[in-house]
């Protein structure tokens, strides 16, 4: 008998065995216990949270020979056949792999016929949003007038793509990602039952690496047992995960702060030389930048006993909040694109160079690094920090700082008053995204500058008069300046009704605190009835935890003076309209313009021609 992997062996077969979905389990178990049966359920959640596992337990609950129950017996014919995957009245359809097959439609058309062996004919449709059109229509037909013997259990990782016609007919449950503590707790239980020796600190590492998925956790645990030759120790797990010692990452960040490409590559090399995983290096780097960002906004948010606290604070002081956001974004993208580089080292080092290209000229001054605290004690800060080394092949020429020709990007206009903002009409969540349908801030930020200046009054600014004056000066001079008088809102607090949908401007105008990173990496899709629905790329999952969503909710509630809900949806696809993405694009444009200006500067041109001088790239900065 071949070894059975832990993820299979420990797949939960009853509700009681499930970890971390108590809210869903309780509701489901109550319904089954009381015989209150809906005819369609929709389970949503990211991969590995247990959607199909729960669906199969539900199928047993419905068909167990002991009666509809919250505790299927597990031994009757129905239960055992469902567990073995060969129960005739359980039809499992994986829409992701079967989209091209016609017989799904047939299978769904057969729903009208009574079940053969069980009480109910149960359809489990995984990734239901990917069903082909004809299969979908067949399902909808049954869903609209379901025969009493049919139950649908639908699952999806992307509820936004499930049409409203389906959503409205389903009882929806969203499954949460497991916390690292829940994961390591369960691993602890598994190892004790398997009588395998372990160190708890090793389980904590695995708990983090599993990214909220119990299946990943068990798969990693299997690897760790094999790697450790039968036991699970921290050292082995660290090596297996290629986990990166943070001190290397601080070397990278210090080099970045000093704008020192040579030192940066040296730091990259030391990561490479130790065979560490570039993927986890970029993951950790993003995590570190997130901590730095928090330190910039709310220094108190860093735990006092955080090992690297002093280093984080030092970097947080040396770089701006905007740079931190930018570097974070670059790290996340670099990690995602590792597989597309010629090799992973190239992808990793290109990511670091990308940061370098955006680093401020000359390098910021890093406050003296603490002598104690974290690894800085054992590893003295590189000397390069004090004096940035020039890039060796470049010949530095005395180039006068260019007069900035890049026009400043217009500040996003928040004025909730200039003209009554049209009633927000957020696109229904189910409609496919139209690439031409840019959110308001997109069109604003690309508007040619200097044509219109709007003296704006942000909602948080104190307003002295009892009216807000908005002056629009149009430099074309054909249209006279307009002055609009608007009665003040009852209270001076910004009102949700006045919110135009300009997410970035909103963020600029309020205090967000620790959830800043989440807010900047999110795209606002709707804000009906005080529910702010945000889309966040899955890569940013670690900054979109319930914790940070709560913090954002609190900040928004404070700002608008009313209760706001925040619902952040993690999605796989790229999101282009987040404030962070827009800021990065703006910055790239400014950089290109500044470089163009200097490359085309006649004085520089003649230097280049006469002396073969090279403009040190990256030393040109938009002002």
């Amino acid at each position: 008998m071949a070894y059975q992997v832990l993820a299979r062996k420990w797949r939960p077969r009853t509700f009681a065995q499930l970890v971390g979905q108590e809210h869903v389990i309780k509701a489901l178990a109550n319904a089954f216990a009381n015989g209150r049966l809906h005819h369609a359920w929709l389970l949503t959640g990211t991969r590995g949270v247990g959607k199909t596992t729960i669906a199969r337990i539900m199928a047993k609950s419905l068909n167990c020979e002991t009666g509809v129950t919250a505790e299927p017996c597990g031994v009757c014919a129905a239960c055992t056949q469902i567990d073995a995957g060969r129960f005739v009245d359980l039809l499992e359809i994986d829409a992701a792999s079967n989209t091209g097959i016609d017989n799904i439609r047939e299978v769904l058309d057969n729903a009208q016929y009574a079940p053969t062996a069980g009480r109910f004919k149960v359809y489990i449709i995984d990734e239901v949003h990917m069903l082909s059109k004809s299969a979908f229509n067949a399902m909808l037909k049954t869903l609209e007038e379901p025969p009493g013997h049919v139950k649908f259990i639908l699952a999806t990782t992307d509820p936004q793509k499930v049409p409203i016609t389906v959503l409205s007919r389903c009882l929806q449950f969203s499954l949460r990602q497991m916390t690292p503590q829940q994961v390591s707790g369960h691993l602890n239980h598994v190892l004790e039952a398997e009588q395998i020796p372990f160190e708890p600190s090793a389980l904590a590492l695995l708990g983090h690496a599993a990214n909220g998925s119990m299946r990943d956790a068990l798969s990693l645990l299997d690897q760790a047992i094999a790697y450790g030759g039968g036991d699970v120790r921290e050292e082995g797990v660290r090596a297996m995960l290629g986990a990166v010692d943070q001190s290397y990452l601080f070397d990278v960040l210090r080099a970045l702060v000093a704008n020192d490409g040579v030192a940066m590559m040296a730091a990259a090399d030391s990561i490479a030389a130790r065979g560490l995983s570039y993927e986890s290096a970029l993951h950790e780097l993003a995590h570190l930048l997130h901590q730095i960002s928090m330190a910039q906004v709310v220094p108190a948010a860093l735990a006092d006993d955080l090992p690297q606290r002093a280093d984080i604070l030092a970097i947080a002081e040396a770089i701006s909040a905007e740079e931190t956001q930018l570097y974070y974004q670059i790290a996340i993208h670099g990690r995602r694109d590792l597989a597309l580089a010629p090799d992973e080292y190239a992808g990793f080092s290109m990511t670091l160079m990308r940061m370098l290209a955006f680093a401020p000229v000359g390098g910021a001054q890093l406050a003296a690094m603490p002598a104690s605290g974290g690894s800085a004690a054992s590893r003295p800060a590189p000397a390069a920090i004090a004096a940035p080394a020039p890039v060796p092949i470049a010949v530095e020429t005395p180039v006068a700082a260019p007069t900035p020709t890049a026009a400043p990007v217009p500040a996003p206009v928040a004025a909730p008053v200039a003209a009554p903002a049209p009633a927000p009409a957020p696109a229904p969540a189910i409609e496919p995204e139209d690439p031409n349908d840019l959110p308001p801030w997109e069109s604003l930020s690309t508007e040619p500058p200097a044509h219109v200046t709007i003296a704006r009054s942000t909602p948080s600014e104190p307003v002295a008069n009892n009216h807000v004056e908005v002056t629009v000066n149009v430099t074309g001079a054909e249209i006279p300046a307009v002055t609009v008088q608007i009665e003040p809102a009852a209270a001076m607090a910004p009102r949700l009704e006045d919110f135009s949908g300009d997410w970035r401007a909103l963020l600029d105008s309020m205090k967000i605190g620790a959830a800043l990173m989440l807010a900047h990496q999110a795209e606002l899709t709707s804000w009906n009835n005080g529910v702010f629905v945000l889309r966040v790329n899955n890569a940013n999952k670690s900054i979109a935890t319930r914790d940070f969503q709560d913090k954002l909710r609190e900040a928004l509630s404070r700002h608008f003076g009313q209760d706001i809900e925040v619902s952040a949806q993690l999605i796989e696809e790229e999101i282009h309209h987040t404030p962070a993405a827009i800021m990065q694009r703006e910055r790239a444009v400014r950089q290109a313009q500044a470089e163009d200006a200097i490359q085309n500067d006649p004085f520089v041109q003649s230097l280049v021609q006469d002396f073969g001088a090279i403009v040190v790239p990256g030393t040109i900065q938009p002002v």
Partner: protein
Amino acid sequence: MLNYDLYPWQHNDWAQLMRDPARLPHALLLTGEPGIGKRRFAERLAAWYLCEDPAKTDAPCGVCEGCRWLAQGNHPDYRVLAPGDEPEEDAEDSKAKKKSAIIGVDDVRDLADFVNLSAHRQGARVTVVYPAEAMNVASANAFLKTLEEPPAGAQFILVAHAARRLLPTIRSRCRVLPLATPDLASASAWLAQHGVVQPELHLAHTGGAPLAALDDASAEWLPLRNSVLEQISMPGSLNPLALAAEIEKSKVEPARVIDWLQKWTHDLVGLGLTGRIRYYPDRKEMLAKLANRAPRMLKYVERLQQAQRLAQHPLNVRLVFEALLFDYLAALRGKLTG
């Protein structure tokens, strides 16, 4: 005839795997850069599973019946799932079959039949998937079901050059074994043994992967690479239309040519920003002339990544490279948008 010998740099990884053979999982994912010998490692493991010698330790015996069937290439319990030949449209058409770069959903369905049948011989039924990232979304999802709850005795060995391109659900159902890229000294020594004259240079061209470097020293596409690199190193006289036509005519796979462009651009950026050349030290002079444009090439790096992502799809090769080369010129001028 399969060669079961490990490459010199693989002994540690093999020993690691064989430390506890009883706990070998039903699905193993071998990862690492292209050209480090992952496939041979996978084949050796397959041979080990299929070897019927009751006294076998950590190597297939090579003489038992199982080993002999395998060596003859017709072991009934061994399958390789790889990008196949597309079926001929017309049997009478004598044109060569079109090589597909994709493992299709039908291939995976055929495999399910193989996996679910009982074994012909001692029990193990071994499938090598090479490379695993050649599965498209539909076939990967179909494979997922096979992988999740296979019957006893089914063993899967997946090989991936870029494991991150796999569906995460596939990765999480496998035990991942990253195979080592050898250090420069041992890779050079091995290449020298195989008659390569400038091992370090060829290793640079391939980012350190020895088998790829061996190929690099004698591949039939070398003239094209030289031509491409020479032409793009002189943007003033680069004619995108002519070069794209040349690339198309050569029949070299687009992904490989995009790889050269990526490496060239990587060196441009690296030299400009950090003074480093990774891939083409033999072209340092030409790189240095363009390196002052490093920051503006970052956008082009992204452009090439997009191209690489699409390179497996059947596209019009000439149009792809015309666009890429025009964009290259635009990037150098700081005019690449999008």
